[in-house]
């Protein structure tokens, strides 16, 4: 009797899970597996007479030996490293500020979220205009009305990448702040009171209490930001199209160009598989850290 009940209960459970599983299989698993399949073949849209030959890992070898591919990997790693580091630091600062109680705090909290709420394509256009060499506000702020000195920010490799990182930091720091703020709110006030009585200064309180207890929240923010940063596309698409001279040719954009503009289906899929593997391994590493972080907390409580 009870066996049957348990059986039917688990059946109901699976039944409820089915729609979700179906969605995951159709929209996540199938595309990944199909991309993997494509990436192991040589498929060139405009040369159908070549057929679809199986080439093993040739596309991946080609990617890692091609200077363009390697450059695009480096650009992406620099972008991910710098932008996530800045976003987390800024996120912590913003979170600390909006955690304090002051007048109009809710207005400030809402205002800080505005950049995150703007669609990336529109924000990218805005930044492109801001850094335009003729009428951009950036030039006006730096050089005033001295038009002869106006700079073309998006025409130099270093400043173009910096502008794209700046746009990303501007746009998503508030998202990191939101997650970190949630973490801040779980830290009990008694800890601060006790440490004050023991004579701890503001810096000690921050480094000995706030930061360690924020670790899980920071890791979650880092996880989200890193995953997103690896997939950066719209900023580059709108602002530079990968230029100047490939200085902002991030992986997702490179893969898109290969697939859709050049018709190199196999190679383009290989690039997207590389992005997938990078994101996948980074998230596994983070999840491991987050897992132990939460575990430590539980043990401490017990």
């Amino acid at each position, binding site marked *: 009797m009870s066996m049957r009940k348990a059986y039917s209960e688990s059946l109901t459970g699976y039944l409820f899970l089915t729609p979700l599983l179906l969605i995951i299989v159709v929209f996540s698993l199938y595309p990944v597996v199909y991309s993997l399949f494509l990436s192991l073949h040589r498929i*060139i*849209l*405009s*040369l*159908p*007479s*070549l057929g679809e030959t199986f080439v093993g890992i040739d596309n991946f070898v080609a990617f890692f030996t091609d*200077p*363009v591919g390697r450059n695009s990997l480096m650009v992406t790693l620099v972008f991910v490293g710098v932008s996530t580091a800045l976003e987390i630091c800024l996120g912590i600062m913003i979170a600390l500020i909006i955690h304090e109680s002051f007048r109009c705090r809710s207005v400030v909290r809402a205002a800080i979220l505005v950049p995150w709420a703007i669609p990336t394509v529109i924000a990218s256009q805005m930044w492109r205009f801001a850094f*335009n*060499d*003729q009428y951009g506000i950036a030039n006006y702020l730096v050089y005033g009305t001295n*038009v*002869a000195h*106006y*700079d*073309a920010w*998006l*025409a*130099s*490799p270093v400043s173009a990448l910096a502008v794209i990182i700046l746009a990303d930091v501007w746009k998503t720091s508030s998202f990191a702040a939101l997650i970190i703020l949630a973490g801040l709110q779980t830290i009990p006030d008694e800890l601060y009171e006790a440490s004050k009585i023991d004579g701890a200064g503001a810096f000690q309180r921050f480094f000995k209490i706030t930061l360690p207890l924020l670790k899980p929240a920071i890791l979650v923010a880092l996880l989200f930001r890193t995953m997103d940063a690896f997939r950066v596309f719209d900023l580059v698409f709108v602002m*530079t*199209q*990968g*230029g*100047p*001279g*490939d200085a902002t040719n991030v992986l997702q954009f490179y893969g898109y*160009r290969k697939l*859709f*503009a*050049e*018709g*190199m289906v196999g190679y383009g899929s290989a690039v997207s598989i590389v992005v997938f593997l990078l994101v996948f391994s980074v998230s596994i590493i983070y999840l491991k850290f987050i897992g132990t972080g939460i575990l430590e907390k539980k043990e401490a409580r017990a």
Partner: protein
Amino acid sequence: MFLNKLVITLCLCMWVSQAGASETLHFVMWKPNQPELWDRIVGIFERETGVSVIREIGPHSSTAAHALVTQKLKNRDPKLDVFMMDVTWPPEFAAAGWASSLDRFFAEEQRQDFFPGAIRACTFRGKLYGIPFWTSGGLLYYRKDLLQKYGFDPPTTWEQLVRQADTIVRGERKDNPALKGYSGQFKQYEGLVCDMQEFVLSNNGRLLDYESRKSTIGLPANLQAVRFVRDRIIGKIASRGVLTYEEPESLHVFIQGHAVFLRNWPYAWAISNDPNKSRVAGLVDITVLPHFPGGQSASTLGGWQFAMSRFSTKKQLAWTFIEFMTSPRIQKILAIDASQAPARKSVYRDPEVLEKNPHFAKLSAVFENTRPRPAMPLYPLYSAILQRFYHKAISHERSPLEKLAEQADDQVRYLLQLQEEAGM
């Protein structure tokens, strides 16, 4: 009441679609700048033949329109009879077996009236795959008031252009500190290939050796032209900003009165002479692009063509439509009402056309000598290699030209190998 209306409407729709079923054509084009012109000319065709044309409008950019059309052709979509083709597509569409050869419809002598460059661009391995609709080519726009003020004739060599630009900019610095000598398209995109090809070919350079099927990006004559652009134009007579310009941005600088010379396509004529849009209206003239000593002026060929899907089941009807759209009569409407440059030479001698567009007399000389971009099935890939090479080469003052060219040639070699393997 509402339901009744709905039923009646539905019946009507079905009747209409039934009635038209025997004589409908599916036509895919990109989003045009002058939709009313297209409504009109397609309307004339529909009225005179009784055929209804179902138009599907794709995105405005050529690259995006390419993605749409190739998707349909790859799936052998039967609801596609006629489509518009950009000037670099025919080899790709021919090799992929997507475009239908038009030789049996279009006799040799009928081709005589079209600009030879436009016909060549539609031809792949001796067969014709498209009929040119309008044509285009790179032109040099200049400020005739400024050139006159300093006593210059329009430059015929690049060296002259640089010198004139320098003198004029120096002389005007007090009144117009934002004035630059030159504006053009140097962003990392298809337009860069067009602009750079004009420099390279006008120095007797060559990008592909068709006979031996070799890439020749690193030839001394080619590199000399690229070096000239890097050392004398970018950051010198042109601002470094041109490295981020497509056509609209480069034109914007010119119509603001901030450039002496501009390289652009014929469409810029109407805009730069429109007092509502341009501060230099009436002060602008056009001429052929300059060349290097010993070279000849080279203008990159642009333009759009009509093509027929190989999977169309109504090829005869499709041809009727293409023939109509490329007829002298429609070409004249195109020239007079849209200021677009027709692909037929005879239209440029028509007094009515010349009265409306006096500058067409000059254009016709340019179009006689336009130079196509290399014709090859893997052109999109080739273009990406060139874009990368040129942009790296001209965006650093001390870029290692030879080394970059060697890398680019290597990449082209691989692409030529692929084409050879595919029997191209």
